[in-house]
């Protein structure tokens, strides 16, 4: 028995000692596989800080984790509407711009930063990556998609009757696509506009209501067009290109669409705000940001990084496949951003999608 208690005691001692380290440890809450670990390691070396990156799969999980305060995160990377919600509930610190030394006015892509300012999240967040929702298509439908945009998802006379269409299985996104097609605000609570959107969704017969599997279905040829996030498209594009397979699909950003942004914020519970500002600043440095973009592969928010990539030969290859905003954000583009909506409104959206699926 003495032996057993001795073992138990040593284990407990080990456990309690694991928490003690000389260096400051900061916690970053991020999406899965969404940061270049080499850049993080370089940051740790340059500043003598230990960084632990935790990964989650959704904005809602981030919200729960930040709110519960079980781990005191220093930097979190939620999306637009979730930043707004966290800020409204007092979970976020306002950023101290004087501590983010590499920040300059106008360094971010205006298409996204203006929307951030409009929804008031710019005081709390420094953008990380951004993108749009749009249409992924198989090349044989390129002309129709380019001409009609979201129309191909809501007007079944545009595509041949055997074409298979995929829709995002998320009430917010599917209803937003319908609203955008109608030219309305994505955050509208006007019930007349919402029922117009519902009519559009109900009239169509979607082959698949999916999530991130939609992109795979397009590549496999099981779907012809689908609503996807630009990030989903890039993800599969790089895989197909790396493996040297034919890229027989494309992505189109409609003229009037939703812009999403993931941005770095500092929760009020953070115990290392100084280090958190350093971390955010590190990713504003053009070289570091470039290295990070090369790993993650989404559209960079920093204009200089984007310009550098455009000059780079290796990246120019990808330009042809619609990587850059010049290519897919056309002249006269109007973007909108999701705002935090009430639970009741979510319920309404959820019901719209349920009814649309049943018809």
């Amino acid at each position, binding site marked *: 028995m003495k032996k057993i208690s001795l073992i138990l005691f040593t284990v407990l001692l080990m456990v309690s000692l694991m928490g003690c380290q000389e260096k400051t440890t900061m*916690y970053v809450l991020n*999406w899965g*596989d969404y940061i270049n670990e080499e850049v993080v390691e370089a940051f740790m070396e340059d500043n003598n800080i230990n960084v632990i990156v935790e990964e989650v*799969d959704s904005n809602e999980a981030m919200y729960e984790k930040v709110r519960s305060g079980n781990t005191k995160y220093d930097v979190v990377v939620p999306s637009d509407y979730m930043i707004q919600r966290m800020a409204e509930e007092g979970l976020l610190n306002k950023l101290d711009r004087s501590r983010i030394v590499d920040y300059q006015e106008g360094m971010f892509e205006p298409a996204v930063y203006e929307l951030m300012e409009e929804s008031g999240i710019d005081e709390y967040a420094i953008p990380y990556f951004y993108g749009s929702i749009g249409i992924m298509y198989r090349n044989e439908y390129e002309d129709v998609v380019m001409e009609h945009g979201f129309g191909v998802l809501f007007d079944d006379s545009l595509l041949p009757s055997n074409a298979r269409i995929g829709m995002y299985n998320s009430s917010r996104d599917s209803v937003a696509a319908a609203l955008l097609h109608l030219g309305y605000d994505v955050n509208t609570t006007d019930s007349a506009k919402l029922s117009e959107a519902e009519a559009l969704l109900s009239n169509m017969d979607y082959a698949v209501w999916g999530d991130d599997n939609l992109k795979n279905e397009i*590549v*496999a040829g099981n779907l012809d067009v689908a609503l996807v996030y630009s990030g989903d498209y890039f993800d599969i594009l790089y895989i197909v290109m790396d493996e040297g397979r034919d890229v027989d699909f494309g992505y189109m950003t409609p003229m009037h669409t939703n812009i999403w942004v993931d941005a770095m914020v500092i929760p009020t519970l953070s115990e290392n705000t100084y280090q958190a500002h350093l971390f955010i600043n590190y990713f504003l440095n053009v070289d570091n940001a470039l290295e990070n973009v090369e790993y993650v592969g989404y559209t960079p928010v920093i204009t200089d990084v984007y310009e550098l990539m455009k000059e780079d030969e290796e990246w120019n290859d990808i330009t042809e496949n619609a990587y850059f905003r010049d290519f897919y954000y056309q002249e006269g583009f109007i973007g909108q951003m999701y705002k935090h909506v009430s639970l009741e409104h979510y319920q309404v959206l959820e019901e719209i999608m349920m009814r649309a699926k049943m018809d």
Partner: protein
Amino acid sequence: MMTKLMNILKWPLVLVTFFLLYFPIIIIAILSVNESQSAHIFTGFTFKWYEEIITNSSLRTAIFNTFLIAIISTAISTVIGTAVAIGINANSKKESTKVLMLSNIPIVNPDIVTGLSLMIVFSFVRLKFGFPSMLIAHIFFSVPFVILSVLPKLRSLDKDIFYGAVDLGCTPMQAVFKVILPAIKTGIITGALIAFTMSIDDFVISYFTTGSGFSNFSIWLYSRLGRRTFSPAAYAYNTLIIIGTFTTIMIMNLKSYRKERKRN
């Protein structure tokens, strides 16, 4: 009539059952050697995903954490569970049913309830979320399984074997360690194995009780499902686990087969 029908259906039924059981496993094994990262085409044979288990540092850490938690929690919960089982068995029938019922409730509880309530308790006592909280949670849900597998062995023992040992000069402690424990060895091993597999398998309870960036394999995989195509190294790891399980079972069966032949 019925028996005849059953006789005809016997083999197809067996085939269908085994197909349903093993088809997903075979698919995962195939995907783990597929050159392409997409699941819908097979472009060539490769072992590079197996290599990636070691080179991909986040996956490697997650697997290491999985085993670290599994081994430590198995060791501790086996000790606690065995001690509790011996205690339950030594009590009167009425007392032991009460305690047994209490220890069975966590088994019946849905994982999500256990996970949530543990999370609430841990944050109430200000425990550091991460390795310690996940370890305690795993010990918590493993102990009842150890008790359940040790107790039948104890019950089948002669009640007087303990007193016999004491009469023959053992102290009560010695009687437990030298007589009772060797007699219930197989029950303890079974309990430890169940605790180990439960710990390696677990997702829900771990998900709620982790923090500070400490994640096991299942949490790692889940966090990568949302947006990015995860690396087939996950399939490779799964295949390795399956191969490991198969070889263990084969070796065990072979051993017991040989033992039986020796006896005859």
